């Protein structure tokens, strides 16, 4: 009963909520009309957008020493999670069989383990910094904590199911993934889709005004 629910209707429901929700949020951003900028352009908006997309991958040197651990942990977590999500053998197989119809070469098992260790350590450090740094704590919302904890639980249940010997553990992992998919479009997790447009928009705005930021 629970198995068929998790593998069936709940999976399709969560996938639908995720897809429609993400598209809705992106459309909302794209189609929200902003004021037309009537000022004379002092620089190129396009080059400003591109510059901002790439330069923001590194912290500004003025603040880098204060947020060193945040930067390192951030990269550890995001790169680890990216590798796990798209290159872990069970995920590649799942995407091929259930969603895309084609697959690609998966990571070897040792790389999978290392990537997950990076992701776990990075996420723990990031969440602790949010909790322990007085400014981080003040600007954090309930959404930030739920997103971090939910992501951690999804990763943890995935690691529990590594042995593939128990279908219950796979179901538990899938259930937590479904919860994450439903929560995703309405949370700060949307930054996975919005961080590039956001950087581009800000960069274009700066570029048009000739601001070197």
């Amino acid at each position, binding site marked *: 009963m629970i198995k068929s629910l998790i593998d069936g209707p709940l999976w399709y429901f969560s996938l639908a909520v995720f897809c429609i929700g993400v598209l809705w949020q992106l459309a909302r951003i794209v189609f929200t009309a902003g004021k037309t900028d009537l000022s004379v352009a002092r620089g190129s908006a396009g080059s400003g957008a591109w510059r901002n997309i790439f330069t923001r991958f590194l912290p500004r040197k003025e603040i880098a020493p204060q947020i060193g651990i945040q930067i390192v942990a951030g990269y550890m977590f995001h790169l680890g999670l990216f590798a796990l999500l798209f290159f872990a053998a069970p995920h590649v197989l799942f995407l091929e069989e259930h969603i895309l119809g084609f697959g690609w070469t998966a990571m070897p098992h040792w790389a999978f383990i290392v990537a997950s*260790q990076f992701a776990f350590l990075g996420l*723990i450090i990031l969440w602790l910094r949010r909790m322990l740094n*007085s400014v981080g*704590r003040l600007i954090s919302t309930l959404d930030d904590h739920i997103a971090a904890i939910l992501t951690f639980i999804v990763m943890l249940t995935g690691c529990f199911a590594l*042995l*593939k010997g*128990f279908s219950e553990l796979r179901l538990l992992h899938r259930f937590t993934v479904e919860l994450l998919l439903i929560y995703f479009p309405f949370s700060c997790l949307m930054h996975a889709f919005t961080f590039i447009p956001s950087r581009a928009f800000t960069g274009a705005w700066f570029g048009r005004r000739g601001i070197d930021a």
Partner: protein
Amino acid sequence: MIHRESDVRIPTLLLLMCMLFLQFQVHAADPPPPPGMVSTVPGAELWRKVRQRDGKSTDGISQVKGVDAGILINTQGDRWARFRINKLSPYGSIALAVVFLVIVLFFVLRGKIGIDGGLSGRMVHRFSDYERIVHWTLAIVFIFLAITGLILLLGRPLLIPLLGKEAFSLLASAGKEGHNLFGPIFLISLLMMLFSFVRRNIYEKGDLTWLLKGGGFIGEGHVSGGFFNMGEKTWYWIVILIGLLISISGLVLVMPNFGQSRIIMEISHVLHVLGAVVLIAVSIGHMYLGSFGTEGTAEGMKTGYVDINWVEAHHDRWAKECHEKNLVISAEEYARILGKKAESGELLATEQEQGK
């Protein structure tokens, strides 16, 4: 209902048939018993050799490449398994239970250890964000490893009666995967801890006095301490040294493909469990003293600041330094650092709008 995906029936049957066949072959080649000694047990000579009861190494010949590939039955492994089941597991659980009970008893008899004069509200910065992140990362990973490790060590006698075999096997499988995955994270956290705190944990003059007075429990008068007192330093070195022992022995266990023999892995396992039990036992005491056992201690790892009265009670030499360098801040300054004022967002926004 648990579904095991691997079906091992056919390979097991084939293996049994091969063993039976081999047994008949070896029986035919058995040398005649020495005069005056007649064995009444069929195949006794064979099994005596297989189990190496004469203490001699009787490695067989195998096409399989690898350490111990020529050994059919590892008698040392038998001894290790008995030691694990009959000694490590029960005595380990008893040790942990005793420590827990002693701490409960101590709390009931002594209560929370307070500070003379209470907390003043004036604070001193003790730990940076980075140091607290390192501490809590290690703590979270350690607690996870302790729970999953204890499930694996004590699960059979303690959890199977409660959960049943099927649920326990599921829990143990999940625990084992989690334990193996988080082990190396513990090592990384441990190294971060080593490099962050080592400079202030070198033993110095005056530490021995602290030890001789039992940290204040023996005799009268105040026990002198620096930034870290003798007890804290000793806990630090227990964590580092036993943590390294556990980590290295854990890596030996989790990576069997590096050519280590079974005896090395069995010794590693025993050291791993012994180290873990000691570390868990001492950490229960640390958690107690660091949280509700001692007034004012938890603040240090929560906010990074501690009350000056707490410093004077437990670390008088450091307190003197704080006063000399004028490091003590007021309660208002402390609240400002924690953003207490900014928490009332409306007030801050109004002030900003008015250009204040």
